[in-house]
């Protein structure tokens, strides 16, 4: 016999997404000012707005701060190994195509150690939504530079500033075949939720980059200040360009404050999906 316990019945006047969070896992491990909570909030709202029962949603994460997202959402959820969230999610999505599979993970997990899986999942046009939380560094391990760290930005493994060209993730996702591509920041709460919902409602591979502050690691190394200060940078410099086709020009430069950070829903096209 399994050991079981009673479900705690929530109070009547609960928040609309309370049922979508694993309240018994709170408090969470995320730092003050971190953007990941806002992303989880947006994902939960998209689930609620999807019209599909919660049982039909599945969340898969990799490793890192963003990889902990799967542990806080009250749907079937899988916290996998570093970089392998996408092929794990493919196994679920292909075996049970009726499920709405969302991968929430970080830029290091999805674009560095898992980069090969990202381009192949996009190429195959597997029916899933990928939310890539980009905080420009490896936060969990203490602020090392990664494949999205802007040139010149500092990290513990690049004390004089990153010298490598970072990935422009929307450009990469579009080039490799994603049928829905967006970039938002955690300032753009409603736009982000809307993008997740649109991707969920679309057959095929949707990729949403969402910029998020990491004040403990990236912010500190780069004198950005607390989470609110990074959000203020987003507010001042973000330009919305829906449907823009020149994604190759949308690199993110956090040092040069004359350069815009371009956000928007860039790609929304139809293409035969993996099981289509």
């Amino acid at each position, binding site marked *: *016999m*399994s*050991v*079981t*316990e*009673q*479900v705690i019945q929530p109070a009547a006047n609960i928040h609309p997404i309370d049922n979508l969070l*694993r309240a*018994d*896992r709170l408090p969470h491990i995320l730092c003050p000012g971190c953007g990941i909570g806002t992303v989880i909030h947006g994902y939960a709202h998209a689930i609620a707005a999807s019209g599909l029962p*919660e*049982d*039909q949603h*599945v969340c*898969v994460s990799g490793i890192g701060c963003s990889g902990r997202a*799967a*542990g806080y959402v*009250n*749907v*079937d*959820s*899988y*916290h*996998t*190994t570093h*970089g*392998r969230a*996408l*092929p*794990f*999610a*493919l*196994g*679920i999505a*292909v*075996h*049970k195509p*009726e*499920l709405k599979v969302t991968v929430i993970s970080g830029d290091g997990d999805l674009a560095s150690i898992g980069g*090969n*899986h990202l381009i*192949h999942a996009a190429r195959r046009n597997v029916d899933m939504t990928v939310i890539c939380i980009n905080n420009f560094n490896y936060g969990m391990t203490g602020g090392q530079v990664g494949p999205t760290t802007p040139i010149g930005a500092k990290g513990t493994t690049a004390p004089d500033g990153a010298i490598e060209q970072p990935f422009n993730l929307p450009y990469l996702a579009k080039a490799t075949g994603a049928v829905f591509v967006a970039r938002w920041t955690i300032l753009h709460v409603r736009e982000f939720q809307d993008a997740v919902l649109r991707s969920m409602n679309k057959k095929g591979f949707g990729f949403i980059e969402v910029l998020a502050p990491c004040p403990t690691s990236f912010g500190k190394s780069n004198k950005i200040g607390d989470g609110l200060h990074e959000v203020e940078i987003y507010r001042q410099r973000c330009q919305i360009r829906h449907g823009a086709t020149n994604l190759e020009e949308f690199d993110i430069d956090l040092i040069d404050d004359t350069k815009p950070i371009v956000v928007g829903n860039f790609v929304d096209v139809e293409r035969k999906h993996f099981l289509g």
Partner: protein
Amino acid sequence: MPDNAAAARVPAKKPSRVLTGTHFMVGDHACAEGALAAGMDFFGGYPITPSTEIAELIARRLPPLGGRFVQMEDELASIAAIIGASAAGARSFTATSGPGFSLMMENIGLAAMMEVPCVIADVQRASPSTGLPTMVGQSDILQARWGSHGDYGVIAYCPDSPQECFDLTVRAFNDADKYRVPVFILLDEVVGHMAERVVIPPAEEIPIVRRKGPNFPPGERRFLGYAPDDDMVPPMAHAGDGYKVHMTGLTHDEKGYPALTPEIHDKLVNRLVDKIRLHASEIEMHEEIALDDAETVVVSFGCTARSARHAVNEARAEGISCGLLRLITVWPFPERRIRELIERGKVKRFIVPEINLGQLRREIERLTQLPVLRLNHAGGAMLKPDAILELIRS
């Protein structure tokens, strides 16, 4: 009317999952047919010699049966995909060889830790590294047991014929589900590529054991995904079943939630090991030839056991007191039987021929002070019966 249009009107023969009958078949194909007969419905794999025939047969046979075949981008993805599919309820399978097996190791640990059943065929070739891709090896034996970091229990079968490739693959799927572990079928290139008679029984005679699930409907109360039953194996709910499971490679409590304490870790890892260790007598399989009075015991497995069998029979015909212990499961290792033989006092020495430099021999040496004679080759060719016979005579 053109012939091909006429042919198109003929109703296609309904594809059969179980190819009941007598076949002449290579081991790789028998392994694939075993997986199909066991109800495998998801395969994720990457081409690699000498295992590719398994993927090729499944690519042809599985989709018409309603299953999914996905050629993944690499072995890292293959193993992740089969764990994901199994988490969603599939009986999932992949096939590889040494280099791919090495790449799979991290997520084999994930399958062990999440307790997600899956089956991995490793058709061994001469190693290390790229080695001799088309030639035989038996050098993944210890990797199968210890390849991923940390302690966990596994099951590994070593077929010595195409017939066993079929039979043991069916068994592998059943054991994977029964114990919620990754199970390996360690073929070798010779067994994988040799053609012999394979008898596939009627579907109803093939035993199918499936993993147990929650014993109450979703929503009734909370399902604790890692609360083990008396057999130390927790029931498993799948993605989409409605139980809202959480699975993680982190140390976790009975809810499946991360619980990062030494006490919970020790309890969990001990259970992962014990659920196999304490069921070893149910899982372990071996074949014995003339062991009761044997002074020399040859211990062997896979294609080498075919040479060893011949050598033992020859030696006995010459009046030499010897026998064969053929491992069918290399893990769990038949430790109890070997201890019994040693304690009975009749055995004077062991001979362990293997196509590696002594991986299995170490297991026997740790059990006995008796001489353990070695016959090794790093790989590329079978060990010949004459070489084993010469050692038995010595």
